[in-house]
């Protein structure tokens, strides 16, 4: 385990520029992860800047070509450029991931905070409900929603959002309960502050802080789940180059054209790994390193 070292600037020395200091304090892996995220952000907002081909342009003379200089990630069964299609799909994939995470955390916040602050009855009821929701595997719950409401982007967001909410709700409940018992809340109560003010000023801000980390990690996991659903053929309709849909489309060619399956997966993995690295870095910064090297 590393012992934290405190470096004080020599008296009279010039303070480094804040940006330089920030850059120096960030490990290389986090910098790389940030660069990957920036790439995907550009891809989502301005795909034309990164594309090498028209993502819809078929080319029957260049069908199922392996990755090369002309086609970075190869071509599909109609000669479309896989790399450009991946870039085109980024916006939708990230949108679904963000939407599902927002819904999931919104639900979780509502349930978790109510359980943590609503008294014993509310806590008992919500905890039981969460226990029961926990018994359903995430993907099974998501498929149940797809069955009932049919295949659409909205269903995908709801399915992934509801499927992942119980885990976050439990974490938030635990956090609220922990903060409620903290010394400074006790002190505020002893000083005679109104309960509403204690909740607003002390409990909520401290209980919600870990949410930054959860949000970061959650987006990655939501994209993994959503693309999993799409991979099963239950995601967004086929012509869309959403990452999961690309995986699904490449599935029948996997023995002949591995790049159709491996490259979209690589995008998902690169994105999910980057948010995980950044999320863990944030966690270490916000909450201090706990027992992890």
């Amino acid at each position: 385990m590393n012992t934290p070292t405190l470096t004080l600037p020599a008296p009279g020395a010039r303070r480094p520029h804040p940006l330089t200091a920030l850059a120096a304090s960030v490990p290389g892996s986090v910098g790389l992860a940030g660069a990957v995220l920036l790439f995907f952000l550009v891809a989502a907002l301005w795909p034309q800047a990164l594309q090498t081909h028209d993502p819809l342009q078929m080319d029957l003379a260049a069908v199922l070509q392996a990755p090369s200089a002309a086609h970075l990630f190869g071509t599909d069964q109609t000669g479309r450029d896989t790399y450009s299609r991946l870039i085109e799909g980024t916006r939708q994939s990230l949108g679904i991931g963000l939407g599902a995470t927002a819904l999931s955390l919104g639900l979780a916040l509502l349930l978790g905070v109510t359980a943590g602050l609503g008294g014993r009855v509310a806590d008992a009821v919500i905890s039981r409900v969460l226990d029961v929701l926990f018994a359903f595997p995430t993907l099974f719950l998501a498929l149940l929603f797809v069955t009932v409401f049919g295949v659409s982007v909205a269903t995908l967001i709801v399915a992934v959002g509801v499927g992942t909410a119980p885990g976050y709700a439990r974490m938030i409940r635990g956090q609220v309960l922990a903060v409620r018992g903290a010394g400074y809340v006790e002190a505020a109560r002893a000083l005679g502050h109104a309960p509403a003010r204690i909740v607003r000023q002390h409990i909520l801000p401290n209980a919600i802080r870990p949410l930054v980390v959860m949000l970061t990690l959650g987006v990655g996991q939501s994209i993994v789940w959503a693309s999993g659903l799409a991979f099963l053929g239950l995601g967004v309709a086929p012509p869309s180059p959403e990452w999961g849909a690309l995986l699904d489309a490449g599935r029948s060619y996997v023995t002949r054209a591995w790049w159709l399956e491996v490259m979209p997966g690589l995008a998902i993995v690169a994105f999910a790994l980057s948010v995980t690295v950044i999320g863990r870095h944030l966690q270490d910064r916000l909450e201090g390193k706990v027992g992890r090297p």
Partner: protein
Amino acid sequence: MSTPIDAPGRGGRGLARARLLWQGLGAVAALWAAASFTFLVQTLMPGDRAMLLINMAAGNLTNPSPEEIAAVNARYGFDDPVLVQYLRYLGNLLRGDLGVSFQQHQPVLAMIGEQIGPTLTLAFSALVTAWVIAVALTLACTAREHPLSRAASALQVALATIPPYWIGTILLVAFAVELRWFPVEGQHSLAGLVLPTLSLALPLAGYLGQVLQDEFARVLEQPFVTSARMRGMGDLGVRLRHVLRHAVLPGVTLSGWALGKLLSGAVLIEAVFARQGLGGLLVAATSARDVPLVTGIVLTSAAVYVVTNLLVDHAYRLIDPRIRLS
């Protein structure tokens, strides 16, 4: 979780029995709640279920007469008040009747029974494999200043993040398609189980390894470890005999939770390797909107989860006899 320690002696067995009864009741209540939840979701289904059924049977969009719709409604009881439908649903569940598939007109329970075997085999072998990998890595790497152990812990973070279906695809392409070490489709052979098991086990091993190692590192600092070392015990002996047993506890709790993850993962892995099992059934049922079959499978998975977690709770007590009551 509060864990009062009961007094040894005659009271112990009676208390144990009471606890078993209490836990059984809890499991039944959880299943009842799960069934109610799936029923609730079904009632939210937009559109007319009778129409859906008729279209499903006809294979295309039809324009059925009111009489036809009424006949279907009467047969499935869609016209009854929701409360009546709910009670009938629960009553059928109690008799082990999960309903009849909309699409294939077979009892859902029998269809699940046919397919659940391979899925449970896959999930269970993945769980065992994940444990073996995680324990081996933990024993070898925790709290050792070695570049390899740093690499191992980075690898675990990566494994826990990578979706199992992508690992599956890579393994399939590399070892079955290119190298031909394993069959591309191995339904009934042990060799065919290797790649699917690994794809499912590796992400879980990543999770499990992180949890085990945190706990392992903590236990390594405990006084009884120091005292064992002072008695002259070797490093490996200390790790195996004293530390592992303690470090394993949070992993056991995690295994119950991991089952849900494994079942979700198994559905995807079965799709990657075109294996038979619950996954194929569930996906086909979902795209056909075969509500009874999907709810039946979802409920079954919840039941498997509830039962497994009862067992995990008991395993926990075997490993740590100090915990008697919860």
